[in-house]
């Protein structure tokens, strides 16, 4: 497996919505390389005919009766929000100015 470059770390950070510093790029590149080399061993034993296991218990779709039950009030739902306005979450601007 090829070594992880600074550019790849920067790309992963962008995908992960993580603003990382220049110093962190170097640190993470080295560390991710060690981790990924170590975990790549999983490919040594797995044959094509082995089914994957995603969960240790069989997953079933769980539905409840469609009955109205009390939920959080708007005030409760917004109680931990960094910012709120008019009973809604207020977010930073989404569109660029030129948009």
């Amino acid at each position: 497996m090829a070594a992880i470059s600074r550019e790849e770390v920067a790309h992963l950070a962008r995908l992960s919505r993580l603003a990382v510093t220049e110093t962190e790029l170097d640190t993470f590149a080295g560390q991710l390389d060690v981790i990924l080399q170590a975990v790549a061993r999983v490919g040594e034993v797995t044959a094509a005919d082995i089914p994957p296991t995603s969960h240790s218990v069989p997953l079933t779709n769980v539905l409840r009766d469609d009955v109205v039950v009390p939920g959080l009030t708007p005030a409760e739902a917004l109680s931990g929000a960094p910012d709120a306005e008019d009973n809604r979450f207020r977010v930073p601007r989404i569109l660029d100015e030129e948009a």
Partner: protein
Amino acid sequence: MADLTRLTATEIAAHVAAGEVSAVEVTRAHLDRIAAVDERVHAFLHVDADGALDAARTVDARRAAGEELGPLAGVPVAVKDVLTTRGVPTTAGSRILEGWRPPYDSTIVERLRAAGTVMLGKTNMDEFAMGSSTEYSAYGPTFNPWDLSRIPGGSGGGSAAALAAYEAPLAIGTDTGGSIRQPGAVTGTVGAKPTYGGTSRYGLVAFSSSLDTPGPCARTVLDAALLHAVMGGHDPRDSTSIPQPVPDVVAAARAGATGDLTGMRLGLVREFATEAGGEPGVTAAFRDAVDALTKLGAEVVEVSCPHFEYALPAYYLIAPSECSSNLARFDGVRFGLRAGDDGVRSLEEVMSLTRDVGFGAEVKRRIMVGTYALSSGYYDAYYGQAQKVRTLISRDFTAAFEQVDVLISPTTPFVAFPLGSRTADPYQMYLADLFTIPTNLYGGPAISVPCGLSEGLPVGLQVMAPTMADDRMYRVAAALESAVGTLTPPAL
């Protein structure tokens, strides 16, 4: 009455039920102990003294009114800060949730309250339960009461240290790759990971959803079983919750305490013996414990689990992959921290800055590893293969349990290490979970119980059982406890 903080949960509940001591007295004794020692131990991130005393008063009033109390009524419990507690701060050890007070209780906390236990507060942990030493808490590390220069294990180091420091008789942990058992081992306490799906994850701040399992922490096996019985069982709000009752773990613990294991077959995993990095003192204490189990009538045989050596790499692909998805919700919009919102930066920039400021290094590492493993072109090579390894490990367990009743191993390869000694190399830190991880991938229950000392520090023995055979592991653990006894840390 003797120092109330030295009593077991079983003893406290009996005294409260008999009216020999009030729940308020018990609670005050533990709050006083926390005030006296927690500055040095740092087991707690938040102490809810008022809430605890209110809960204790309610128990006392119910008793005075002649109500029948549950088996743990009036017993204080410390809760890992990864479970939501209505109105009480819940941070998961992270800056990104600093000050967040959830508007709802997790199912487990709801059940603890209904059972009349008294929640003392929230315990320290590695950020989002990612770590093996509680050094990755954003609020500073917890220190091991056996030696304050050493780690208390992770990620539930706060819960385990609270027990070892006599700040609480019971605590709740969560175990994704060993985060209940490993801290239990290195603090000389008992920690059990129930069968996955046997305890509810509703209201648990998710790290790796297919692995996360809440469980009990205590100073004795019987106390752990009592807590397990109170917190466990089917929860319709958790789609992975198993719709079956919890096996009778309390009866199993009582049966094991008689010290008779006649007819039980215990399996030693051959591959664990050859894994590098195990300390001789740990191996010696484990061997002595195996001899003790043999004297109790158990038959000990060697079994092979050839794929266990691939558990660690598989885990460190699956867990980061799930975490990269689960932690996407921490974006500075609906709760927690928001950074860089100056009216100029875009939503995307604010999200990235918030997550940069809010997450610590280990969380960022795992998010990026997970993002890499799930990304186009790498999915088949990493995540897909890891899920196949999970199948192979489950097959190993199934084959082993056709030969033996339970598997036993040391819980950790080494005793508590000095703070800072493994943080420079993340993969070295991951090795701390070498013996605990296979169980999480398989989904079965496992418990760590103290089995002796090495260099004056506790060593844990792990008992692993088939899924939904949690009672079997309690029986073996209680039997070992009857032979070895509990460990008493030096005075703080």
